[in-house]
């Protein structure tokens, strides 16, 4: 029938398999190898370049991975795309920003999506699982002040990009850490410098932080936080692909879809960005320790009410008012957690709380690789990047 021997015929699938494997494995290797040599630069120069760089209009895919060592949560994708997923495991987000005050971030579930759209003084969140819209607008009385701020250009979009995470890390740099530059690498297909921040303190849980910065635009591309022992980062957020171009107008605007449930929320504009950075803390909050060992203590929190999904209990948390336009930006979790009350009702939070906390004398303790949280029986909550024992000592 043909002149190929049976042995030769069985070699065909082997060859096909090898070719297929090569086709899937080779491109990433080539991409990571093609990093051109970047000019040498000092850590200080890099930090300055990042601080001075204008926010770029960009769009891209961000992958956020948390390996905090929490007990695995019974959530997964069953609950659809929801900010709760950010607690553990890997999440993918698409982000778009014009680099000024319009942006969109979408947290992707397999067949669902949770979107946060900011268009100047107003913002929306949309959950495809609930078909629910929350529309945030700045208070009428604060509107004039917001418009005035717009005349001062550098009011940045409050987006969970690596830029926001990097800027908060760099704030701690000078005083409490040693800063070095690691070998250059390729992140999201772009040549990047790697800034390594190592705490001088030996009592914090954080081992070191690596910030990868795009060599061309000085945009932070990835932030990795290691604890003291693990071989993989405990928290990692970074672009897997990025394009520096202004997104189309349809992406940066939003109008509520017909038939969706809708909620209007009016939020006060926070104090000027400069004031937000200053050391003033909300009432009921005390801060002890310095640098990486800082412990924040919140008093009078209605923990039981929060766990019952009681929205009023949220007001007992100091400084919990949702804030749009604040550059200090409570970063990732809070960006997505802004309307936590609408999502959490699906979960039995009491059970969840019981699963991830363990009883200790005087309260319940959550320990993760990076952060410990102590909830005392008298309604205080202590949070810090320190071992649980330190929190217990502080609570006394």
């Amino acid at each position: 029938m043909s002149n190929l021997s049976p042995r030769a015929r069985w070699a065909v699938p082997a060859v096909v398999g090898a070719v297929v494997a090569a086709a899937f494995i080779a491109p990433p290797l080539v991409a990571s190898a093609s990093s051109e040599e970047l000019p040498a630069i000092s850590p200080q120069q890099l930090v300055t370049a990042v601080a001075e760089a204008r926010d770029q209009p960009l769009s891209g895919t961000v992958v956020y991975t948390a390996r905090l060592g929490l007990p695995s949560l019974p959530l997964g994708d069953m609950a659809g795309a929801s900010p709760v997923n950010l607690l553990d495991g890997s999440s993918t987000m698409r982000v778009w920003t014009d680099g000024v005050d319009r942006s969109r971030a979408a947290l992707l579930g397999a067949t669902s999506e949770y979107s946060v759209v900011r268009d100047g003084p107003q913002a929306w969140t949309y959950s495809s699982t609930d078909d629910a819209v929350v529309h945030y607008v700045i208070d009428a009385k604060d509107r004039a002040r917001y418009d005035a701020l717009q005349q001062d250009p550098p009011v940045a979009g409050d987006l969970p990009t690596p830029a926001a995470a990097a800027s908060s890390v760099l704030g701690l740099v000078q005083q409490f850490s040693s800063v070095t530059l690691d070998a250059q690498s390729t992140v999201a297909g772009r040549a990047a410098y790697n800034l390594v921040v190592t705490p001088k303190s030996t009592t914090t849980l954080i081992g070191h932080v690596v910030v990868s910065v795009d060599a061309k635009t000085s945009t932070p591309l990835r932030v990795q936080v290691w604890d003291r022992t693990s071989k993989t980062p405990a928290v990692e957020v970074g672009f897997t692909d990025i394009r520096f171009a202004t997104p189309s107008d349809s992406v940066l605007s939003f109008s509520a879809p017909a038939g969706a449930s809708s909620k209007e929320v009016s939020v006060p504009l926070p104090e000027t960005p400069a004031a937000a950075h200053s050391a003033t803390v909300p009432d009921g909050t005390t801060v002890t320790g310095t640098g990486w060992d800082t412990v924040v203590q919140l008093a009078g929190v209605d923990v039981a009410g929060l766990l019952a999904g009681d929205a009023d209990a949220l007001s007992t948390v100091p400084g919990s008012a949702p804030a749009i336009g604040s550059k200090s930006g409570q970063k990732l979790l809070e960006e997505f957690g802004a309307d936590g009350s609408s999502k959490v009702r699906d979960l039995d939070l009491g059970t969840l709380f019981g699963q991830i906390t363990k009883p200790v004398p005087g309260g319940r303790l959550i320990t993760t690789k990076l952060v410990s949280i102590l909830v005392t029986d008298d309604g205080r909550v202590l949070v810090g990047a320190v071992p649980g024992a330190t929190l217990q000592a502080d609570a006394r």
Partner: protein
Amino acid sequence: MSLAETPTPATAPAPVPSMAAAYWRLQRSELRLVLGRRRNLVLLLGLAAVPLLLGLVLFFTQDTALDGQGPAFLGRVTGNGLFLVVASVFLCLPFLLPLTIGIASGDAIAGEASAGTLRYLLTVPVGRTRLLLVKAVGALAFAAAAVSAIAVVGLVAGAALFGVHDVTLLSGDTVPLGAGALRVLAVVAYVGLSLTGLVAVGLFFSTLTEVPVGAMAATVVVAIVSGVLDTIPALSSIHPALLTHHWLDFAEFLRLEPDWAVIGGGLAVQAAWVAIFGALAWSRFTTADVTS
């Protein structure tokens, strides 16, 4: 000298139809067989009943407390009939479609072998490679028919029960009806192409045995095991290569800006499975002893 003068025996065959024409004749008869077989028609009818039943259930419960509950996309059907197509495809994807594919592709070679017709087919004469190709196209055509049956009935039932309107994407943005219909069409096309890898796997199993039920069951098991492995976090490094891992990526077409890298990646994985298991099926079928 004498050799040259000796007339060679007239081995030139009688004029045969061209290769292509012969292939198409065989292919047409195979397609008629696959799509006309009563068992397969019943399967298609069963699949087509899914969107119909789903639509009727949602229609009669739409004003009750149960409205808007259930898996993804189900809640959107009552607002827009187009989503009945997506919801039906989504519900059939984990089990019903793999079962259908398993039956069609597992039967391809093993069915002929068990009926004792395979050796007659091969004495027609038709090359084994070509026969395998004909069988593969037949199984693929049935897979396409299965997905189309769900989509067409879903579209008709959805339009009749709920009407069709502008499409609300997963991001909450609304696109016009025309663009939305195109996106739903793309979803259906992606799901159809997602099944090609499983067709190749079934075809390979079909060349291994003369018992069609064995090949069918093994094919369904592959799909189910792949789905189970996909849920085990410890195996996350092999997840991207799994047959079923990218099946739900059809949702990409319902996002604001579909990421073509994600869609291309999912189709590339299917192409890889087709290439490997197609080659395995070819090696097996062209080297096996056909005794029945």
